[in-house]
């Protein structure tokens, strides 16, 4: 059995040798990076396919789903440690995001995406 290990950050101070720091690969804020991603490039890629700043969704039959990468992973903010429960919430929040976009568009027709 192997257990992946977290990379300690390069020491910046003597105390880092006995108490290492570990770097965050996402933003530490509760800022929607779950569905927007943690870089400007990812966010604009996810939001450029549909008008009005909406997140990209693909229709299979009658329902909307997150688009998939070639390996089957959903294209969203993050997909590490994937399982169906995680994709369920990613999908739910992307749908909710786009519904809010529609409502804002109705209330403020001059706003850009």
């Amino acid at each position, binding site marked *: 059995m192997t257990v992946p*290990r*977290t990379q300690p950050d390069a020491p910046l101070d003597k105390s880092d040798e006995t108490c290492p720091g570990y770097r965050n*690969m*996402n933003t*530490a804020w509760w800022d929607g990076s779950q569905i927007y991603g943690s870089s400007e490039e990812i966010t604009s890629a996810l939001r450029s396919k549909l008008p009005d700043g909406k997140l990209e969704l693909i229709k299979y039959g009658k329902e909307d789903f997150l688009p998939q990468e070639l390996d089957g992973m959903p294209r969203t903010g993050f997909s590490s*440690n994937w399982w169906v429960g995680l994709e369920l919430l990613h999908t739910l929040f992307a749908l909710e995001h786009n519904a809010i976009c529609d409502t804002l568009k109705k209330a403020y027709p001059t706003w850009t995406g």
Partner: protein
Amino acid sequence: MDDQRMLFEPSLTEKISVGTFHLINKFVPWHKLPGILGALNLSALRVELRGLNLYDGYASATPVQGTQEDEPLPDPRYRDARHSDGKFNSLEMPRMGCVGMRFGRNFPRKHCQRPTDELLMTPNPRIVSERLMARKNPDGFIPATTLNLLAAAWIQFQTHDWFNHELVSYAWLTPSVY
């Protein structure tokens, strides 16, 4: 831990709010207060948690967390709008909490010494899995009645950064078989 000093200097309003809700909470907990009062109570608790339970992952905040001079806004819109990598949420310390910054800690760093590999693997994950998590009930699976898998999904989704670390690609820790 009333004798513990706050790690930052709260404003006078914040101090008064914390003191007032300490008194109120002796009689009524925050979730029993009417909506807006309960929300104000939570915001006072947030001040306390930030002051007493959130420690920087760095020995010193400067210069790591950045300043307005060394990390200027790339576009004025980020003063009010979200930046995807988490920068500029604090205009004074622009890099606070952004991608690539260290996790904060809930305890002072001097109490968070790195364990030895042996200590890290004690108890061995396999022992935890086979003994603690084993289904001993003769009927097998015992359903949880108060929560379901959505709780696990929600925690992973909401606090996603806790589950997505920078991994060592060249070394995997292989616990010895007991």
